[in-house]
């Protein structure tokens, strides 16, 4: 059935291959940054998962860390999966997934534009919505600005 979440038995197989991942109650997977690329490649290329589509890539600014969130869909099985990566507050950087899913390109640029998270291993990581000379990253909680009100 499309839109159903991934069965926990399938998750158990993932845990054996990647012992460092954490799985929450609602089957959201938290991946260490170092293993992200190999973990995502396994999800895409292993025929047991076949996550062939990255629907959404976004980020959150928490008090202690940045979190980058990936939503995946497997059209073959109808599974959906949410994966997260926690990053430090200072100069957050994470591996780019543009080599796996083309849809990551603009969404990574948007996250870079608004949160200042660096995606390594890709080219043309430039601002996509704001102008090139814009100072700061407006969706960060500590962003300071002057509004237009007179």
């Amino acid at each position, binding site marked *: 059935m499309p839109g159903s979440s991934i069965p926990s038995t399938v998750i158990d197989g993932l845990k054996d291959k990647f012992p460092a991942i954490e799985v929450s109650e609602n089957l959201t997977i938290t991946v260490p940054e170092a293993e992200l690329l190999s973990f995502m490649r396994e999800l895409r290329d292993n025929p047991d998962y076949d996550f062939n589509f990255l629907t959404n890539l976004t980020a959150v600014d928490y008090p202690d860390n940045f979190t980058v969130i990936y939503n995946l869909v497997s059209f073959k099985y109808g599974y959906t999966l949410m994966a997260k990566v926690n990053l430090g507050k200072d100069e957050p950087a994470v591996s780019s997934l543009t080599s796996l899913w083309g849809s990551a390109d603009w969404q990574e640029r948007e996250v870079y534009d608004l949160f200042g998270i660096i995606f390594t291993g890709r080219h043309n990581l430039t601002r996509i*919505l*704001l*102008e090139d000379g814009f100072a700061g990253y*407006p969706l960060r909680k500590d*962003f300071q*600005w*002057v*509004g*237009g*009100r*007179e």
Partner: protein
Amino acid sequence: MDVTREQHPIEKMTNDSSLIQQVKRVIHLAPLEKIFNLARGYSLWPLGFGLACCAIEGLMATNAPRFDLSRFGYEVLRSSPRQADVMLVAGTITNKMAPYVVRLYEQMPEPKWVIAMGSCAISGGPFVDSYYVVPGADKLIPVDVYVPGCSPRPDAVLHAFMMLRDKVQGKVVLENAR
């Protein structure tokens, strides 16, 4: 200069004696500009240019059969600013869009007028405290008519066009508004 039967500005604008004769015969009492403004006021050509949701009300709904901007002769939305004489600033102007709004305005031939439609184009609207919004179209270009609302109804846009027509034709607009 005074316009009399013997003396008329048309003589300085053309050498065509038949045209001079006709103008002197028919409109020697009226300043030529007034005739032009009569025509301008009844055939404003808006620039087909929408920035945000106001474009749906101001350009699409107003132009559609129910409200029917064509009744007044204003339906000729131009795709090029070089052919338009009214800019309907319909929507939020972001900092990134601001240079293009100004460039489009400057590309329009004189005489030209601007209607600021909706609270965003008047003052920045609900986004005025944002980091990326221009607080009103009049920070960039001169505005003739302000239409309040979020979005204004198509009736209000029609009224704005009629106020602009009165302004173009030199009538006192504010007296009527009181």
